[in-house]
């Protein structure tokens, strides 16, 4: 199957799967994402089953503010694009371009987090807390787990930026970067369902 061999000194086109370790890593990461899909599905199932159990607290209709959610969504969606752009730069071995896009991605992610924290604080103020009802618990568990993923992603990508700055784009750093970008897109996919099934559905009833 060796249908293509670059003249050996040249770097291969797709850095992330250029080495054996890289290939393992990417495949392994996809499997991990498969597992994460099930994990989130269970949280979604739990949330959907419990979302009307708000007891005396505010209901979904009363609580959610779609404008804020729309803004957060825009930020996260855009960050997904910038993340993929950084990968293109990576495969062009354009260090500066890649890091620029990565930093923009991080900034958008941070913006999203700030909005989410603001939103949570607001809800707590309204009497909708983790402990106030089953609806509260399941809401924070689902949206909070997503938020935790975003946070972890930000930390992870930051450490990767440090590594690339030290070592450059190599067949060792590239799979890491690529995989973190997959992770970032995955977070975005989950968010699509959160805004659909939590916020929009919450308004519809």
């Amino acid at each position, binding site marked *: 199957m060796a249908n293509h061999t670059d003249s050996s000194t040249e770097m291969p086109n797709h850095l992330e799967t250029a080495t054996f370790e890289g290939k*393992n890593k990417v495949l392994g990461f996809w499997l991990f994402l498969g597992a994460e899909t099930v994990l989130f599905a269970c949280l979604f199932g739990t949330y959907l089953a419990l979302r009307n159990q708000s007891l005396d607290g505010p209901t979904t209709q009363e609580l959610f503010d779609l404008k804020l959610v729309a803004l957060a969504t825009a930020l996260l969606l855009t960050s997904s694009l910038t993340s993929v752009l950084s990968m293109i730069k990576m495969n062009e071995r354009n260090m500066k371009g890649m890091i620029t896009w990565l930093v923009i991605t991080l900034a958008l992610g941070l913006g999203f987090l700030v909005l989410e924290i603001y939103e949570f604080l607001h809800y707590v103020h309204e009497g909708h807390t983790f402990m106030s009802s089953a609806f509260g618990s399941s809401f924070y568990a689902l949206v909070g787990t997503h938020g935790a993923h975003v946070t972890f992603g930000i930390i992870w990508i930051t450490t990767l930026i440090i590594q690339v700055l030290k070592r450059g784009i190599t067949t060792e750093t590239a799979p890491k970067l690529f995989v973190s970008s997959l992770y970032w897109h995955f977070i975005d996919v989950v968010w699509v369902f959160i805004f659909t099934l939590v916020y929009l559905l919450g308004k519809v009833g």
Partner: protein
Amino acid sequence: MATLIVLLVLVLFLAAIFTGGYNRQFLERMRNSRTWDWLTTVDHKKIGILYLMGGLLFFLIGGLEAIFMRLQLFAPGNDLFVGRTFNELLTMHGTTMIFLAAMPLIFAIMNAVVPLQIGARDVAFPFLNALGFWLFFFGGVLLNLSWIFGGAPDAGWTSYTGLALNQYSPGPGVDFYVLGLQIAGIGTLIGGLNFIVTIINMRAPGMTFLRLPLFTWTAFVTSGLVLFAFPAFTVALLLLMFDRLFGSNFFDHAMGGSTVIWEHLFWIFGHPEVYIVILPAFGIMSDVISTFSKKRLFGYNSMVFATVLIGFLGFMVWVHHMFTVGLGAISNSVFAVATMAIAVPTGIKVFNWLFTMWGGEIQFKTPMLWAVGFIPTFVIGGMTGVMLALPPADYQYQDSYFVVAHFHYVLVGGTVFGLFAGIYYWWPKMFGKMLNESLGKWHFWTFLIGFHLTFFPQHFLGLFGMPRRVFTYQTNVGLERLNEISTIGVAGMLIGTIFFLVNIIYTLRKGPKAEADAWGLGRTLEWSIPSPPPEYNFAQTPLVRGFDALWVEKEAGNKTMTPAEPLGSIHMPSPSYIPIMMSLGFFIAGFGFIVRGIPAAVFGLIIVFAALFLRSFDYDRGYHVEPEDPEKGGKE
């Protein structure tokens, strides 16, 4: 208090390291010691042995708990272990056996065998492999520490909420369950992921998917089940932890929560889990039966197909554990039919085994005895499984001893028999020594008879109206005699297990050395290399030219495999202390959460993150070894 001590010791330890106030030579010696070697190993063969030892240890503990339970149930009105203590025993028995004995033993064999069977030098992620083991081990230790620190979990291995909430199960017992299993579970998930990638990416040239030995196939599907089933359990445990530790209300009906959600989450995981533990046993059966019948596996393709189908259907039947929850006739019927469907692929397997032996030349070596004992025993267990799958009948069986009988027939008669077959079969490959045959036969016969004596009567106990998870029963309702027999049977299993232990010790001391092809009948790649294999497994990656790769060469008159590459230096991954460090971090954090010692919890998490960080910046490239020239080497 305990937290404080732990904290103090660790702080001192770290201070010693960072201030340089330690003895360099001591560290040097430690680094070169055998213990350090085992603690930091990333070699799949050694990790396999670690899993084996860990799994056996927990099997003994779980067995001891079973003995205690059976002693209490020997006669009505006994008061050895009553009430809560009995509930602790049964919970810990079930949990230990499933998560800390059966699964690790499966991972032991998978580690020892899968890379060899596919002609690989290693697994895809040696580091993660080690991490998986240490997480399992520390999780298991944490769970068992509950006996000392304030009481073991007592809500059953299913830990149904309601009962498992703070209100009804005060004390840290269930917290130990939650955190111990969470940690062990992450380890298992990592292990499963590793094996999938290994089997996809690391196969030797020519080893196509339809040439994989059946054990590798089942390892593959089992790993897939682990990958997709464990997340549900992770979520279940997470939510239960929130409820118990942080006052959320997922399962508290007074606050709008629902216990049924726990049942769903648990069984979405729990049912695939039982196939996780049976499929590798099926794989072992297939390999062992074909080896000792001196015949190619009958219907290889349909075996593979059946394995995949069982794995697939396994995700669609979980509600059969919930027939009496009151979910309605439609839901019960749908899940009943889906459950019954699993009998078909399983039947295909059973008949294929029978016809593998048909026309063969069967040698009753110990592994084969276990395999032969497996077939009727497992079939009985499977039949009672099908009987349980009928909701109207299950309304009677559910939570009675009939169920206990069913699952011991499949778990012990299936999984444990399978594991014993595998251990006897591959022991020479793992340790380079043959286990003693006559001790092995004694082990088999005492265990088999004891097993049936213990569990066959339990079917009737259930039908006579004895619920499970009870610490006593009434007199004069026809339950005494059968319970007596059941308890007496355990003696058989106890004696059998002791024979096994004696066999191990005897073999380690003076067992005869094993050949490369230890049984003389080897069909698959692992028998083409020395026992035990060198650290790089294959000096030259073999070229696979058909199913039963070694047998193909034997038939062609070759003594060894044809290599697929020239002899050259081999790259090996470096050992690493990070897996054990990270697991220790999780352990400390878990313990901290359980005793509500937030500093310890935070400290543990810091260790975890430090380990992650070290790992992320770790660019160790491993080392190279020069393999010895195999006696008869080279290409022609």
